[in-house]
């Protein structure tokens, strides 16, 4: 199974068990991404035998809906709960990817997650990396998971 298929499987497992929401691959896996608008991104770094970054990018409306589902409450603004939920989703995805890339994940360390949010920003690697950009859809809308690994 290639890495994008495993990202789809891991994302599906995390959303169905923790967010109580079904997600599905939406369109074609790419190696680039347009600038983001009115969005929030959860990021986690990987170090060790594989070095890189895993990120999950949500439009604000989708992030609020997912956080609401996560916590079982209405969420109508980008607040600490949304930032925390997006960071935790990145953390869980990082844990899954780590286990995919290294047996039991023992040769890879994860950073603590960080969150970026803004009206308009560009999330781009500054070096030549292997980049997998996986688009998803769910009841709340569309979002993207991406993995950048040092070549």
């Amino acid at each position, binding site marked *: 199974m290639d890495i994008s298929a495993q990202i789809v499987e891991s994302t599906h497992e995390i959303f169905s068990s923790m967010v109580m929401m079904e997600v599905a691959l939406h369109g074609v896996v790419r190696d680039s991404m347009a600038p983001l608008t009115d969005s929030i991104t959860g990021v986690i770094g990987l170090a060790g035998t594989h070095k890189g970054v895993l990120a999950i990018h949500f439009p604000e409306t989708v992030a609020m809906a997912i956080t609401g589902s996560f916590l079982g409450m209405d969420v109508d603004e980008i607040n600490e709960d949304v930032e925390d939920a997006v960071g935790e989703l990145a953390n869980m995805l990082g844990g899954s990817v780590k286990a995919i890339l290294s047996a039991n994940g023992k040769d890879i360390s994860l950073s*603590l997650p960080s969150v970026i949010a803004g009206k308009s920003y560009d999330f781009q690697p500054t070096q030549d990396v292997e980049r997998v950009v996986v688009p998803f859809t769910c009841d709340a809308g569309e979002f993207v998971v991406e993995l950048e690994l040092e070549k």
Partner: protein
Amino acid sequence: MGKNVLLVDDSSTMRKIVGRSLRQAGIEFDNIFEAADGLEALEVLEKEKVDIVLSDINMPNMDGIAFLREKATRDAIKNIPVLMISTETGDDIIGEAKSLGALGAIKKPFTPDKVNEVLGPLL
């Protein structure tokens, strides 16, 4: 007297989800205490009666492994059982946690059924 649990995770979202999963699994506690890292967890354990701790591993300030190591040095709290709940499930890190007294681990993501399967027999 009922039982009390301490949830240790730097993510407030995850603490809420673990609490919800306990309820969905049919596991009732009289009190659910929360801590955002190992340092806060030690403070709670010194002050409150806690029957079991559910702890993350990757946390700022004091992570789950350092928490277990420090807890083991304090006579008043060293025997309180700890179960790890983490994205970290490699044999080496879970082995280290068990060597420091952890009873086992639940991998994130988890379902209420999984929580019940692992935690139920410990209560």
